[in-house]
């Protein structure tokens, strides 16, 4: 579904991603792991269009989207969450979710002033969808709270809720688990699997907890120092010497731990 081809990203003198190519298979839950600073978030930013690669191409369903802006990619069915919560802080939780939905009639400024009826049904559907998502994320009690006042974990859930509101084809989850309590996290894992199996929704997730990754992902990509180190099943990757090296030191990557 997503393919990176020869992606390089430079930040000033720093090469954050160095000739990385990989595929995120349609209908799968793919994990993206690696030590801190490996370039995982940057890879997500390249996929989502927030960072323009110095070299290489990004393909989405076989189509080259390298030149597209983030909102255009989102409109094609790509959703993402941010590692550091990017909530709409002066909007309520309910509004955060509703604002994320696509609302072609209600976002037309002419309709809004002169044809208020034109978007009633659309708005109703968005509202129902948002309520349902909020219930699932167990955010009902803070529904009318301004998102800026939420706790870190709750903000993460709002991130996820907004992604779900898009009805996307693929969701990129950047450390959605960090800061969320275990019970809910486990429920989230169930929901992610369910969305994947029932709706065929594709996921790519960055996560540091390898047990969590192994529970969800059949296929894992490992990055370190801006390179794609290896890929495969969680077990295969876990026993890969280069991966152990990258995480625990030794050899080429030691100096950076």
């Amino acid at each position, binding site marked *: 579904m997503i393919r990176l081809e020869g992606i390089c990203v430079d930040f000033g003198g720093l090469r954050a991603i160095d000739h990385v190519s990989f595929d995120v298979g349609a209908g799968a839950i793919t994990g993206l792991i690696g030590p801190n600073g490996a370039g995982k978030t940057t890879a997500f930013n390249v996929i*989502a269009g*927030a960072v323009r690669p110095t070299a290489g191409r990004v393909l989405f369903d076989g189509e080259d989207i390298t030149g597209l*802006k*983030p*909102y255009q990619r*989102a*409109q094609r069915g790509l*959703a*993402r969450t*941010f590692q550091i919560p*990017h*909530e*709409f*802080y*002066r*909007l*309520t939780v*309910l*509004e*955060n979710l*509703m*604002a*994320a*939905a*696509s*609302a072609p*009639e*209600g*976002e*037309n*400024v002419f*309709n*809004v*002033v002169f044809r*208020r009826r034109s*978007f009633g049904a*659309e*708005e*109703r559907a*968005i*509202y*129902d*969808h948002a*309520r*349902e998502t909020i*219930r699932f994320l167990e955010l009902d009690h803070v529904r*009318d709270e301004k998102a800026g006042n939420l706790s870190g974990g709750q903000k993460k859930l709002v*991130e996820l809720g*907004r992604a779900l*509101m*898009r009805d996307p084809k693929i969701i990129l989850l950047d450390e959605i688990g960090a800061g969320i309590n275990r019970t809910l996290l486990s429920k989230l894992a169930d929901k992610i699997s369910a969305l994947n199996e029932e709706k065929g929704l594709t996921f790519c997730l960055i996560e540091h907890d390898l047990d969590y990754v192994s529970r969800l992902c059949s296929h894992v990509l490992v990055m370190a120092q801006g390179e794609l180190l290896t890929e495969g099943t969680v077990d295969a990757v876990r026993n890969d010497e280069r991966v152990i090296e990258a995480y625990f030191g030794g050899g080429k990557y030691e100096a950076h731990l």
Partner: protein
Amino acid sequence: MTELSGLFFYLVSVLIAGGIYALLCLALNIQWGMGGLFNAGIVGFFAIGAYTSAILTTPETAKHLGGFELPIFAGLIGAAIIAGVTGWAVARICVRLKSDYLAMASIGIAEILRLVIVNESWLTNGSLGISGIPRPFGEYTAGRPADLVFLAYVWLIVLIVYLVATRLYNSPWGRSLRAIRDNEASAAAAGKNVERFRTQTFVIGCAFMGVAGALSAHYFRFLSPSATDPLLVTFLVWVMLMAGGSGNNRGAIVGALGIWALWSVTEIFTNRLPPEWATRSSFIRMLLVGLLLQYVLQKFRAGILPEKSPPLHFEDEAERPAPEK
């Protein structure tokens, strides 16, 4: 008796100017309160509106472009269109800038417009200004009753703009705009075309600023570059919105009236100062207004009427089971 009617008409004049400020404040609230666009060149769009309407409605003269003698309402529409189009051109260039750069760019543009107004005499009669600008229903009324007619006219337009601003605010469009204001990156990740929203916002706000300018030209019947003082327009309108409550349309009106009333009262006060101080009165008033703003913002961090999320009209049915997804 004359004392009392004098006071009454003083109040009328305060309310007329207050209404014009309310328009500016509502316009700024659309741009800044909802859209997070830092327009520091309000006076530029105000001036465009004022000159457009003045030129469109005055009789033929050799001093400046004109002789169209259009009805006043057409002048207001023309003011909105020309100010809006200028806003569109500015937005094309500046809307991608971060808010502090947009502020600098808009100050610069307002300054350029001021220089154009002063120097292009064929268009504006330069510093001599445009006179004989008609009032609405001016043929039927004169003197003080005319002020009452104008008061009603101004507040009718305030009402219309308020209704439009409320519809904008209380809509999916407004919600997405506020989302963009709060976090551009995640709004883009949610498929919002940030530039389109911002351009629309900027144009709408500038058009309303143009209408406010037009009304002030018709009110004073005379227009010269001195009417486009950034201190009296841009600065004061920002103070009004901050005090009243950025993101709240009613707050914008309350702030405009409150600060304008205070501004007018300080005039009475500074007029009684000894002559050697009188020349400094405008600075003293600025200082007083600045102190007041400090006080208001200390007490009410988000202004007197803070931003409030619009009600969702489905709440009554909210508890019915959600449709299966």
